[in-house]
């Protein structure tokens, strides 16, 4: 048996009470104890005897009073909570994302030490192959740096000099854009809560994507109401098209339909509005939104490219999804006539036959540009030229 004095670690709390943080000194001493040692606490704080007894009991430490001091022996379960803890990483590099994220890691920071009785969390998207993109950290950083303030980034007070009917066309196009951007927010938002937060950068990118769409909804609304009290038309066909996107339960397919085909086509539309918008405000909101959308498309392309490389059969699923969506929408009107006409008039800028011809040609060229873009992106995912052409042709006439 060791002499008693060698088993005792003295802790002098001075006049510091447990109600002022003295438990930290006691805990520190207990942490330095081996199981055979005890700590002897001295102190002059008024409530120390009472608080130390209650605190020790709650922590499972043995408490005794001896010769004007208090003796604490460490609870046998002192470090039991962490005995079987696991690192939320799954890789050698503690902070790199693993191939599979355990439901037992929950929302722990990647690389954190997780208590083994953490309840299981239900994150449906917990495999790296189904969500990851090596470009995500870079795209998140770009996106975070590129956030713009709708109040100051757009020249809201610049003059509008175009004819009233052209303004009506702008309002209709903005109404259509708001509706589409609402869907473009809702779709990633649905999956945002299902991606395992172990893949932090993916969650961050999707969160920024939602924030981007929120701003787009705001600036398009504000532009529409610059000179009008009411918005334009919303059609059943347009909404049905967006509903098929919203209801798609598979993350990869939803990303494919939304970003590779839909937002990709929208990118062309926004650059068209930037080029042909009749006023500085329209051109500005189109440009700012197009820059954001380009990141969304780049992200989806990147993670779907990775997904296709690891699971080549998923291309056939994408193709079937495009076909199924086409079947579902074939009896709808597609792009509403008002939007198409609005785009023509907006690009024409006036009512002369020559201007209308110019506007019409521009919209036809826009549709060709959209088709080329879609085919290019499909090729990047490994579709052959023939497959890409067929799939692009089946894409919804509503653009998104």
């Amino acid at each position: 048996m060791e002499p008693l004095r060698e088993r005792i670690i003295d802790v002098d709390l001075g006049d510091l009470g447990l109600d002022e943080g003295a438990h930290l000194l006691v805990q520190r001493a207990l942490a330095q104890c081996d199981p055979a040692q005890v700590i002897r606490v001295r102190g002059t704080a008024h409530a120390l005897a009472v608080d130390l007894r209650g605190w020790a009991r709650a922590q499972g430490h043995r408490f005794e009073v001896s010769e004007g001091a208090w003796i604490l022996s460490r609870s046998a379960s002192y470090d039991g909570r962490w005995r079987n803890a696991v690192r939320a990483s799954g890789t050698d590099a503690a902070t790199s994302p693993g191939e599979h994220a355990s439901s037992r890691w929950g929302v722990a920071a990647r690389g954190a030490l997780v208590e083994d009785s953490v309840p299981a969390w239900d994150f449906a998207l917990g495999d790296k192959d189904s969500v990851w993109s090596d470009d995500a950290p870079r795209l998140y950083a770009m996106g975070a740096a590129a956030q713009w303030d709708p109040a100051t980034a757009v020249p809201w007070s610049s003059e509008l000099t175009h004819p009233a009917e052209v303004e009506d066309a702008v309002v209709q196009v903005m109404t259509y854009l708001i509706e589409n951007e609402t869907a473009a927010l809702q779709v990633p938002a649905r999956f945002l809560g299902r991606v395992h937060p172990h893949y932090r950068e993916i969650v961050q990118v999707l969160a920024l994507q939602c924030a981007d769409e929120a701003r787009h909804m705001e600036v398009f609304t504000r532009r529409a109401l610059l000179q009008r009290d009411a918005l334009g038309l919303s059609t059943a066909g347009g909404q049905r098209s967006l509903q098929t996107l919203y209801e798609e339960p598979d993350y990869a397919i939803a990303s494919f339909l939304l970003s590779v085909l839909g937002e990709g086509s929208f990118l062309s539309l926004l650059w068209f509005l930037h080029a042909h918008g009749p006023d500085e405000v329209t051109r500005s909101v189109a440009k700012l939104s197009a820059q954001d959308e380009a990141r969304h498309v780049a992200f989806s392309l990147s993670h779907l490219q990775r997904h296709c490389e690891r699971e080549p059969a998923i291309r056939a699923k994408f193709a079937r999804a495009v076909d199924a969506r086409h079947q579902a929408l074939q009896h709808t009107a597609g792009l509403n006539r008002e939007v198409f006409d609005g785009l023509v008039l907006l690009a024409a800028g006036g009512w002369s036959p020559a201007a209308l011809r110019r506007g019409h040609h521009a919209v036809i060229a826009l549709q060709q540009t959209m088709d080329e873009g879609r085919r290019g992106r499909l090729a990047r995912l490994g579709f052959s030229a023939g497959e890409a052409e067929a799939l692009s042709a089946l894409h919804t006439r509503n653009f998104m």
Partner: protein
Amino acid sequence: MTKDHSFVLGAVAYDPKVVTIWEGFRQYFAARGFAFDFVLYTHYERQVEAHLRGDFDVAWNSPLSWLEAQRYAVTLGRRVEAIAMRDSDRDLTSVVLVRADGPVKSVTDLKGRIVAVGASDSPQATLIPLEHLATQGVLAERDFTVLRHDVMVGKHGDHVGGERDAVRALINGDADAACVIDGNHLSFVREGLFAQGSLQILTQTAPYDHCNMTVLESVPPARCARFRELLLGMSFDDPEARPLLEMEGLRQWLDGRDTGYTQLAAAIDRFDTIAPWLARVTG
């Protein structure tokens, strides 16, 4: 219908979490091949009566209901035994708090004043501290007025609300002293109920014990032994057991002992608190 061989525990539902706790224990025991079930009562007296009637096998008793069961059993020529308790049930104390800037500096200064306590049947926040004050020479309702905070009477102070209300009364000036369990002095400072240093400890009781698992001599011995063995075998290191232990407020189950209830026994004799109930059930 086949006979149910579950070992049944009686507990008082002082909070909705009680269902979660014992349902968790039921599953924990089931996973170890031990059929266990529980029944809940709204108050301890009903539980004691049911226990003596043979409605269940083991009672999760408050200190007061342990004494109630003990005294009721004696009248029937029966015997109770405390077979297990939490580590946190041993060697508690209660304290009497006063305002640091107030006039009460000693126990005798309480004469003519108001002492706030918890529920009338709370061992820790009423009965034991009032007994302690009586042994110090100041008797409740003779030397000072008692301001009770009857939160959930019948639940023997398991609900902390009565103690919190007693401290509020002290802070607000409605009382000159307040009785609480030792650990709540620190808990209440930490939750901001009163400012550090604003209250002082006037006096502290001797250590006493709190809850225990109580059986009657007629309990099936093998199943009782298995129940006790499984309880005492629960380890805080075990991720299945740990959440249950944390919810029930312990690190480790220990042997039961009946030596820590003398202050409470003296209190119920002095203040004659359980006699009417005992007369009714034995009469």
